């Protein structure tokens, strides 16, 4: 399914899809667990402060089950309480990358027969980010989770530039190799550096006037398809992505644009 169909979802008996609440051990009990540190030393008032924060979060009967003094003016709390908020599940729409699962052989066969040539892919982990394991998982021979990476696909010409690649260098390679698709990995997300990096690259590609010709994809543990779309990418892949998912998406998109 590309869109969620509430009616098709097997909800437990009695659940109202228009007011979904957390479940502890009875429907709609709303039970949630919360933990945090407060910058105040432990005392009865600090426990009460934690409890009140629980209340402000929308917890009925917030209960502090654990409190610990961390010293130097800090204290830690674990709370449980009954969340009064609910979400209307029926109204939630999340864009999804196509979910049809296609095999290694099928993908290659399709590219060969429909496109009639190999798809050229350039990938990199950009900026100051040195985490190559993710992009390697998708691109390298060895692959991931028992699946081969793009380098192993006969119908893909995959070039992995490695880590800490400046956007300028990546762009130069895209142009030089006349890439059909670009894979960018971003793992470090502190100070939202990944968003800046990704947006910059998208702008540069746009400025170069080649955006339409390229399938632009990003990935990383904190990337979602939704965020990717917002940043002007064609797709985003998060934690646990398998190479075949990416290959299948690339094949579809390149064929759609160029076949």
């Amino acid at each position, binding site marked *: 399914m590309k869109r969620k169909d509430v009616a098709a979802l097997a909800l437990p008996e009695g659940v109202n899809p228009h007011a979904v609440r957390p479940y502890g*051990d009875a429907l709609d009990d709303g039970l949630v667990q919360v933990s945090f540190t407060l910058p105040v030393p432990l005392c009865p008032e600090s426990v009460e402060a934690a409890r009140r924060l629980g209340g402000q979060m929308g917890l009925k009967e917030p209960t502090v*089950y654990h409190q*610990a003094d961390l010293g130097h003016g800090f204290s830690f709390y674990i709370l449980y309480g009954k969340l009064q908020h609910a979400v209307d599940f029926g109204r939630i729409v999340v864009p999804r990358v196509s979910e049809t699962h296609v095999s290694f052989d099928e993908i290659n066969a399709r590219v060969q027969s429909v496109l009639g040539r190999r798809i050229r892919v350039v990938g990199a982990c950009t900026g100051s980010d040195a985490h190559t394991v993710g992009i390697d998982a998708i691109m390298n021979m060895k692959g991931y989770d028992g699946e081969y990476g793009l380098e192993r696909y006969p119908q893909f010409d995959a070039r992995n530039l490695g880590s800490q690649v400046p956007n300028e260098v990546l762009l130069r390679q895209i142009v030089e190799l006349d890439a059909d698709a670009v894979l960018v990995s971003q793992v470090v997300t502190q100070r939202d550096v990944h968003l800046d990096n990704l947006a910059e690259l998208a702008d540069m590609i746009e400025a170069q006037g080649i955006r339409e010709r390229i399938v632009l994809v990003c990935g990383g543990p904190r990337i979602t398809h939704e965020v990717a779309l917002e940043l002007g990418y064609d797709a985003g892949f998060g934690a646990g992505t398998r190479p075949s998912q990416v290959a299948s998406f690339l094949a579809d998109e390149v064929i759609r644009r160029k076949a």
Partner: protein
Amino acid sequence: MTSKLDLDPGRIACCRESADAVARAVLAFASERTTVSIERATLRLIGVEGGDDAGVPWVNRVVDGARSLLPGGIALPFARAMRVGGLDPTQTARAVAEGGLELGGEGVADSETQALAHALAERAMARISGTVADREARLEALGEGPRPLLYVIVASGNIFEDVVQAKVCVRAGAQVVAVIRSTAQSLLDYIPEGTTTEGYGGTYATQGNFRVMRAALDEASEEAGRYVRLCNYASGLCMPEMAALGAVERLDVMLNDALYGILFRDINMQRTLTDQAFSRLVSAAGGILINTGEDNYLTTADAVDAAHTVLASQFINEAIALRCGLQPWQLGLGHAMQMNPLNEDTFLLEVAQAQMAREIFPDCPLKYMPPTKHMTGDIFRGHVQDAMFSLASVMTGQGIHLLGMMTEAMHTPHIHDRVLALDATRMVMGSARHLADEISFVPGGRIRTRAQEVLAEACDLLETVRRDGIFAALGQGRFADVVRTAEGGRGLDGVFVKSPDYRNPVEDLLRGRVAWRGAAEGA
């Protein structure tokens, strides 16, 4: 299995001898007595079901109205009433309760009544055997996964909610699901009727609820491709009846202990010990795996000082069980080391105790309980405590592993608490699957020494108990630091000394089974 602890077999034998003497005395005492619950269990086994509009079971109405007859047993008077009324067991009970039929009177001992009673008893036994065969077929077809069996509790207070939670557990790897019963149900001298959504701290154990959960787990078993065992309690004032319902409703595991009710529920010791004997005969026949209650002892007594009381009690429970016809594979002897995990080397003591029990009871599927008492509101710390315990379990080859919950100190588990516990336990046990094969304990080390000391102390304690008798030992607070007297506690008024003409054909058949089996095995 070669011993990793170098325990003295002579000393172990000596413990067994003392324990057996204690068991013989207990069973001799019990055989001279019956209780309201034994008589009710008898009626249940021969087919009485249901209760009045107020929810009082017919078996209670019948037995309460016939207290004067109880020294002779309810079976013959009831069989006679059936003959007189020409009704089935439940109808008869109802008629008796409502005054339409009388119990007692002439013809109670005539041969036709006796024959009917015997036939009813035979039918009861056949019903039990059918259940056993059913379980065996399912186990054969599906298997049940590796040991230790992962045991979780559900306790929402609503059987239908319990079903949902049980199914989620099965998917996450649970192999035994125990439905915790409502706080204080053990003190009720009746079993509530029907399918209930009542209870707090647990869900009422009723025949109806047993059926609901059994059906749900059978479904979940098929889905999971492994047989999932259902557990409840043959404990409290209705111990014999619970065992009976377990045997007919295909419960697979039942908590059942010689001393638990005395120590932790203040149930009268004459009552509980008498009920014990009968309930174990039933469980033996029903192929039920019992879990004994030593895992509770160290919640009140100090775990380091009183570890030997756990072992001593295990020996006593074993001896009683074997004499009641239970097979070693049916003996889920309980244990738990409730030590403050912040104390140095407690993991060593934990391993010593677990390994010791493993080696002393090699054929019993020991039931290992996490150290719940030192769980706090710190769920992160608690989750690690439970993980260490999972490791100790797999390192020492336990048979049934009760899953610790990180939220133990606060509430009965939330739906994900169990899943997280199962995930963590499967991860720990999987990653250390063969650790037990890999390690040995150095001679003269802390682990061996500790095990040897605990065994020696248990040996001394058992000698004392043998000498003074179990009643006196309980009066001296030798177990769990709790003191109880022979006349104190609840339920003594439900105990009757059997008259010479006492008859209970169901009990006869159950005992006959044991005698036959004992004979067959040359014991």
